[in-house]
């Protein structure tokens, strides 16, 4: 299909190379590079406003109107998405790569039967019509664990619970068997028990279909549960990346260390206060020079006024962008 030579089987499915996005000239994503192999789950984590959602949206060319991609390439399965026009991108969306959102109820059209909403992608990308599309939609609803899917397909979103709506949205996203699923805070709006069910569902689908997932979240619990690899973002840059277990066991970047330390623990001392990271995230036009975490970092030193490169640290598969990773081990 694309002019590029077919990618090797072990080549990464998704490659983001030196992506930079600005909003009104302020840098919100700066030099982000990611690589996601087939069948893996990569979690992009960070606080609100760190650029994780914008990074994910710009993969499919879905940036809000005010935002502009100023640099970087995105390659999905060997195809350069940044070179495609709007019409060609629309064919990729929902077919080769889909998105699920954090607001399941609001993300479904209130005036459309859920079966039709699941079938929408089939009509758009597979040219299916009527009964055929309906049958596939019902089958997909059954796969995502909706009981009595035949009847539920006729329901309107307000007749279903939030968890059900999230299942419907997952069904709509997966019905064309996309190579890549971008899950933007998929469980944030759900209560904890439903969260567990949805995560279980995503686990199942992943094992079954070998889905490749880019998971965007600020919830470290979800990361530990779902992801193979993690990329931690701060201030529009990736500050640390690596396999989940290694990174959680021994974070190299001070920001990751402090972020993990903020998670409340059941076995903590009773009188202990919830821990926080000092300071607030500066607005996008007020980043300090050099390392952007410098203004809140307890280890900040003179050298930090130069931008640290994202370099291998501790093991071959891990990287961190910090001058003082050696000292960070003592932190928290």
């Amino acid at each position: 299909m694309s002019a590029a030579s077919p990618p090797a089987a072990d080549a990464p499915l998704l490659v983001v190379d030196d992506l930079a996005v600005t909003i009104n000239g302020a840098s919100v994503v700066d030099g982000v590079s990611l690589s996601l192999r087939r069948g893996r789950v990569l979690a992009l984590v960070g606080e609100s406003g760190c650029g994780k959602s914008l990074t994910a949206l710009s993969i499919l060319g879905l940036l809000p109107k005010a935002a502009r991609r100023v640099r970087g390439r995105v390659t999905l399965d060997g195809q350069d998405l940044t070179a495609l026009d709007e019409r060609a991108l629309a064919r990729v969306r929902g077919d080769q790569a889909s998105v699920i959102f954090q607001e399941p109820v609001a993300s479904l059209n209130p005036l459309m039967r859920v079966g039709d909403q699941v079938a929408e992608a089939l009509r758009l990308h597979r040219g299916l019509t009527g009964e055929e599309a309906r049958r596939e939609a019902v089958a997909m609803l059954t796969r995502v664990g909706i009981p009595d899917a035949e009847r539920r397909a006729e329901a309107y979103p307000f007749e279903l619970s939030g968890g059900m709506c999230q299942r419907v949205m997952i069904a709509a996203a997966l019905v064309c068997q996309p190579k890549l699923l971008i899950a933007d805070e998929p469980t944030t709006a759900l209560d904890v028990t439903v969260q567990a069910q949805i995560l279980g569902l995503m686990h199942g689908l992943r094992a079954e279909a070998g889905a490749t997932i880019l998971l965007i979240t600020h919830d470290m619990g979800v990361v530990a549960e779902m992801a193979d690899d993690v990329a931690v973002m701060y201030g529009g840059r990736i500050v640390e990346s690596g396999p989940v277990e290694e990174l959680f066991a021994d974070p190299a970047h001070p920001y990751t260390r402090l972020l993990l330390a903020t998670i409340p623990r059941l076995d903590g001392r009773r009188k202990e206060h919830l821990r926080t990271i000092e300071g607030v995230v500066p607005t996008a036009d007020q980043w300090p020079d050099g390392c952007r975490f410098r203004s809140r970092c307890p280890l900040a030193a003179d050298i930090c006024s130069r931008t640290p490169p994202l370099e291998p640290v501790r093991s071959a598969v891990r990287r961190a962008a910090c001058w003082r990773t050696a000292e960070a081990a003592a932190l928290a």
Partner: protein
Amino acid sequence: MSAVSQPLARRRAGPRWSLWAPAALLALLVVIALAAPWLAPYSPTQQNLLARLKPPGFVSRGVTYWLGSDELGRDLLSRLIHGARISLLVAFSSVILSGLVGTTLGMMAGYLRGPVETVVMRVVDIFLSVPAILLAIITVAVLGPGLINVIVVLALTRWPRYARVAYGQTLGVSNMPYVRLAAFMGARAPRILWRHVLPNIIGAMTVVATLEFGLMVLFEAGLSFLGLGVQPPTASWGAMLSTGRNYLATAWWIATFPGLCLFVLVLAVNLIGDDLRDRFDPRAS
């Protein structure tokens, strides 16, 4: 206290008379208009110069003028019944035409934004800044009078109302996650507007259309009153009102009955519009 409990009481009240009563009235008028040739006792254009300006109930040579006769001795009741066709035809056609044009342009402006938004909404501003009836009069004066021209002119001058509302509603709906998700799933603008935006703004558009409908009836009457609408001898409520005005002192019935008909039709339609507005406005309930 009663103000607080009222909405609840109203919801429990069973059939909604505030909607059904005027709707029934409108339906009755539509049936009368459709069945005019069979309902009208006499021809609307048959003149009888011996029975000019006769009061309601006048009987002449076996012909009963239930609502009297006009200045050419034509039966007023028959003319009223046939006149209903013109009023309703003009109102329905112009509402549908202007609604289609206005809603389409408004949705495009609200969803696509950018240059489309600028052009469409500035044109809307220009149209809305000129009194619509004045615009209609000028256009008819240029195009010439006649039924089709009146409909076209009303559609041309009234679409900005719909565009304005459709634009605002679309701006709101476009930011809903389900509209963004549709784009994220690969749907393109026409499909998103048709399947996701339109169904969610159609309620508001219906309200505008209903309120406009009453206005269109009056516009047609006004244009006919000024001699710019349907031409004699075709019966139209507005034209009847216009001629009847000259005889108001001597033959009050010629102007009064068309006026009453207009009043009842516009009232019915506006009551429906008000009720629909309350129903579609989330703040009202």
